[in-house]
């Protein structure tokens, strides 16, 4: 699927050594080469986005059909032209999943977990990246190995533990683990810390800054893009997580949106595909907004790197 896309890429004109002061042939001029490069990349990106958006478009188109029409062939792709869009599907699906309860719960869980994820991962990753101590390599090996233990195995003993503490059917099992640092985020941030020259810490240290000061003023501003990644990733994960709420939450009043989405299957018997797709689309809106807001941290130039004398 993807190989096809990349083969359409046009190579930019091969640069040649240019002699100063001499008028270059049209295709070798710098701004022309730049223009061809940008133009062909834009074409490539446009083409790729069609492939990527196709399934999403399929979801949109289906969400606007009646239940009977959603499976009819040949597919009708143009709501408003080929068929009348059923906007009431959105209202119906939201009412069905009791959206006020579902999204209040999801917000609480996702925001508190995300905060815990970011704070704990920054501190732990900083420790692993910048401080020498006996046993450090062994401990870092342990961090990595926890990534490899299949989740499903840890779940049974963990569930027993939370139930013993009377925390089953509360938000605690969904939020608490995030505050102890996820191995994934620790590893990620540690890799980013290692790309910053140690001399920057050292010169701040000479100026009298303590470890927390160095973290806050020197290192964190440099890894803002990575922090944005952790923030987006953690929020998205907690927003969409299905497995853990499924295991821990019983009361309808504590259900998260991911659980409510799965309820479409249970009640209707045959899955109402049109309503499911409508609800699934509404579910991603906050994630898209969050991403769109934070993506400016991926724009080059925000990070000023350099070692002070």
């Amino acid at each position, binding site marked *: 699927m993807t190989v096809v896309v990349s083969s359409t890429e046009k190579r930019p004109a091969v640069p040649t050594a240019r002699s100063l002061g001499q008028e270059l042939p049209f295709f070798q001029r710098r701004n022309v080469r730049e223009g061809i490069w940008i133009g062909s990349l834009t074409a490539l990106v446009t083409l790729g986005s069609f492939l990527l958006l196709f399934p999403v478009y399929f979801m949109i188109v289906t969400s606007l059909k009646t239940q009977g029409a959603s499976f009819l062939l040949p597919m009708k792709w143009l709501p408003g032209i080929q068929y009348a869009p059923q906007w009431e599907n959105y209202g119906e699906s939201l009412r069905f999943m009791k959206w006020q309860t579902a999204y209040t719960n999801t917000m609480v869980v996702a925001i508190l977990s995300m905060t815990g994820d970011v704070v*704990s991962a920054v501190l732990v990753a900083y*420790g692993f990246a910048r401080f020498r101590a006996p046993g450090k390599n062994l401990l870092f090996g342990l961090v990595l190995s926890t990534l490899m*233990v299949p989740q499903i195995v840890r779940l049974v003993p*963990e569930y027993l*533990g939370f139930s013993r503490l009377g925390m089953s059917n509360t938000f605690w099992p969904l939020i608490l683990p995030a505050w102890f640092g996820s191995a994934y985020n620790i590893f990620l941030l540690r890799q980013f810390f290692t790309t910053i020259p*140690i001399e920057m810490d050292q010169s701040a240290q000479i100026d009298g800054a303590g470890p927390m000061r160095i973290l806050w003023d020197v290192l964190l501003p440099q890894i803002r*893009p990575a922090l944005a990644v952790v923030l987006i990733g953690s929020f998205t994960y907690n927003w969409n997580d299905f497995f853990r709420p499924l295991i821990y939450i019983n009361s309808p009043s504590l259900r998260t949106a991911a659980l409510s*989405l799965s309820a479409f299957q249970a009640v209707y018997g045959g899955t109402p595909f049109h309503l499911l797709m409508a609800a699934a689309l509404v579910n991603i809106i906050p994630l898209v907004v969050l991403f769109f807001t934070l993506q400016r941290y991926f724009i080059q130039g925000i990070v000023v790197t350099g070692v002070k004398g």
Partner: protein
Amino acid sequence: MAAVTVPGLRQSAGAGALARKEALWFYVLISPWMAGFILFSGGPTLASAYLSLTHNDPVNWPPTWVGLLNYDVMFRDRLFWKSLQVTTYYTVLSVPLSVGFATLLALILNEKLPGMAAWRTIYYLPSIVTGVPVALMWNWIFQPQFGLVNGLLYDLGVPSSMLPKWLSDPPWAVPTFVIMSLWQFGGPMLIYLASIQGVPTQLYESAQLDGASKLRQIWHITLPSISPVIFFNGILAIISSFQVFTNAFVITQGGPNYATYFMVFMIYQNAFTYISNMGYADALAWVLFIIMLVFTATAFRLQRHWVFYEAVVR
């Protein structure tokens, strides 16, 4: 945290005090993870190691000790070998593809194209649409008779006898899973985008003065600079591809003819659907864990040849 008092006494008193202070900071900073390790990962994992040496199920509690019996059964179990083969095949196919694909896209989306914010959002979009609704959608899209992909291929002139049966055809099932997984490249792509921001701009400026082309700059500056992060994503891709579950659970249930009988799905079945075999599931999980450890350790060995660290890892 007893280890704090250990550091090198061979050095002079001042250096020793400094080293002790540094070690103390280290242990304070990582203390949240250490607590979490005992409570949420190390503890439960050790518990499952013990349980793998027992026969246990919810009915026959407490567990009875059976020694290595579960492992003995496993190595004679043809389904175990099949599952291992399917999982390894999927990993070998998907890891290089997904790492390469995400890197390529991040490099492209890092260029200053018109409407960049919109493009990045569009390319990230697929990775936030996950879970059961998407699994059901894929199942429909790859349906052999009235699925959208085969419909499109048919319209493009592929004769109906040559159309792939995708998820219902054993040789095609794993490659189809790989295609579905490539759609979720957004997370790694984002990590690459973030890491490309950390490459000092002076490097590009001096390369431009020397007349280096765009592709040469990417090859000689960008890729070496972000190699620690490529390595990170590679490790993560290995780990997550060994643990693929949701699609196998929702769409194929391990079929057709065990073609998508992934390890975690097998563990899930033994732990939560058959009632007699929790200990067997724990043994399977431990073997999977060890296989993943071997793969990752190999990757760490190999990283010396191509991963470039700016700061010496201390």
